């Protein structure tokens, strides 16, 4: 198992290097002088010169990349052009809010999506299957930000049950987490249904039934256990989608997470913060995928020995 974990950890190195290259070239792809962009329009020639020297922009490109990498491994991404605070502090302060929202949404999505997918698979091509698969398709096609706004209209404006945005109590979490969950529940339902239908048609399920086991046992212990890998994969992949959705959901509900931070930074052209948030999003996604791979090894021991 340890060997598998180490192998999997090593495989993330090229991706991490790729991310660092992407971030490095991000500033250099900007039209004009990056030092001028960071210093702002009002900066003097001396200020720009100083920033250029501080960033190492007056040195060869390979040296610049080396310096950038050394700063990156120390999580030194410079200071925000707006607040002058260290970027990592800005990102770090908002990260827990995004993680909290994402975890709440994925939990809700699994609580609804997995049972819905199982029920649809157990009764394929019946009204209940059509109901759940239609709901899933609607969920995939619905713009998450629009759903969020409509929930605000219903629950905050008309019924006045829940706050329209912000943070402070558990009530503030309900609408954002439901909105974000609706975004991913569709994929989980569809994948659970597909892999359960396949598992239920396998010989081991027929054998389990012919042994006279109760249907519930056949479904949960025999079919679901074998259908779990694609479900776990899709849940892991949806986490990425969820991070993308978090950008929109946090904007709708004025939720102070890193999704909103990146939008505010893009609007203010605060490039160090944009770099920082993109880095954190990339790292989070890699970590979740790594975690999913670890779970595979637990669910299916054969994977460890491949």
């Amino acid at each position, binding site marked *: 198992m340890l060997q598998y974990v180490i192998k999997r950890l090593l495989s993330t190195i090229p991706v991490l290097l790729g991310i660092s290259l992407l971030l490095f070239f991000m500033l250099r792809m*900007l039209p004009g002088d990056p030092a001028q962009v960071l210093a702002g329009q009002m900066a003097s020639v001396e200020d720009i010169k100083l920033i250029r020297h501080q960033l190492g922009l007056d040195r060869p490109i390979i040296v610049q990349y080396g310096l950038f990498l050394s700063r990156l491994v120390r999580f030194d991404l410079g200071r925000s052009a707006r607040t002058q605070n260290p970027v990592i502090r800005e990102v770090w302060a908002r990260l827990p809010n995004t993680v909290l929202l994402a975890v709440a949404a994925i939990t809700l999505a699994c609580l609804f999506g997995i049972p819905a997918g199982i029920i649809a698979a157990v009764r394929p091509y019946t009204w209940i299957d059509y109901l759940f698969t239609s709901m899933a398709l609607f969920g995939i096609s619905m*713009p998450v930000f*629009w759903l969020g706004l*409509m929930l605000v209209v219903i629950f905050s404006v008309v019924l006045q049950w829940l706050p329209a945005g912000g943070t402070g109590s558990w009530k503030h979490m309900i609408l954002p987490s439901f909105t974000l969950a609706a975004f991913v529940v569709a994929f989980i339902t569809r994948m659970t249904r597909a892999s359960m239908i396949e598992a239920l048609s396998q010989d081991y399920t027929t054998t389990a039934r012919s042994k006279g086991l109760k249907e519930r046992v056949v479904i949960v212990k025999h079919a679901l256990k074998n259908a779990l890998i694609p479900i776990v994969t899709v849940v892991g992949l949806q986490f990425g989608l969820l*991070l993308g959705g978090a950008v*929109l959901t946090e904007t709708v509900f004025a939720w102070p997470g890193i999704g909103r931070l*990146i939008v505010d930074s893009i609007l203010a052209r605060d490039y160090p913060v944009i770099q920082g948030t993109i880095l954190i999003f990339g790292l989070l996604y890699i970590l979740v995928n790594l975690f999913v791979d670890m779970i595979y090894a637990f669910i299916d021991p054969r994977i460890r020995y491949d």
Partner: protein
Amino acid sequence: MTETTQPQSRRTQRSADSQLKRNWAKLRRNKAAFFGGILILIYLITALLAPVIFPGNPSAPNLMRSLERPSMRHPLGTDELGRSILGRVIYGSRVSLLIAIGVVFVGLLVGVPLGLVSGYYGGKVDFGIQRVTDTLLAFPGFLLALALVAVLGVGLKNTIISVGISMVPIYIRLVRGCTLSVREQTYVEAAKAVGTRDRVILLRHILPNVMTPITIQTSLGMGMAILFAAGLGFLGIGVQPPTPEWGAMLGSGRAYLFNSPHVATFPGIAIFLAVLGFNLAGDGLRDVLDPRFRL
């Protein structure tokens, strides 16, 4: 020689025709795909005939009529500048169609050749292309588009490029995977054995055989492109006002949610129906052309 090959090629042509007919019949029987097709047709007609359906300038403000509720005069009401929401939703279909086509074009233009080359040649070329793909896939698609917009700037052209590039890794992976299996087929080996050039093998033998997943992905990709572009517009970093873009309309309607919720409601319904159409059609195509991947 000619006498024997001609009936053979005619038979092959007839078999391909009947396969096409069978698929078309299956597609027509598939209710979801049929409904999706109708939604796409309505969407296309609306986009193409927008000036006929709604004569007049959808961006011309009329402050005397701002934030009016739906009425006979303005069936979907008016926005904060007194512009007809119906008119802007109709013209918005043109913008979103342009974005969807542009995005898929960028995705196909870059992703398909790279996927074909990566899967066919393997080795160092494959390794290089796949590491770049891995890096791009390390970011969720919408975030990648967001990062690219941050660099390129806002506007229609940059929205198309950014969302298009975010789709590229999906096409690369898809085409590469299919190419890997197709290149092992006997007809590819036979083509290689008679000395056919790689370019010809890739274009004449491999590409037509990976068209099915590309077609399915293109339909689903159009829906995704509309959603991504609308998301960017909603955040204020996509297509800029006064261009009638559905996402941007929703974004500006957010400020009037408490008193005039209709401003944000109708553009959202338009996005939903357009994306639903492409998703239903994509699912239907998958069921008919590639039943193994049915979800």
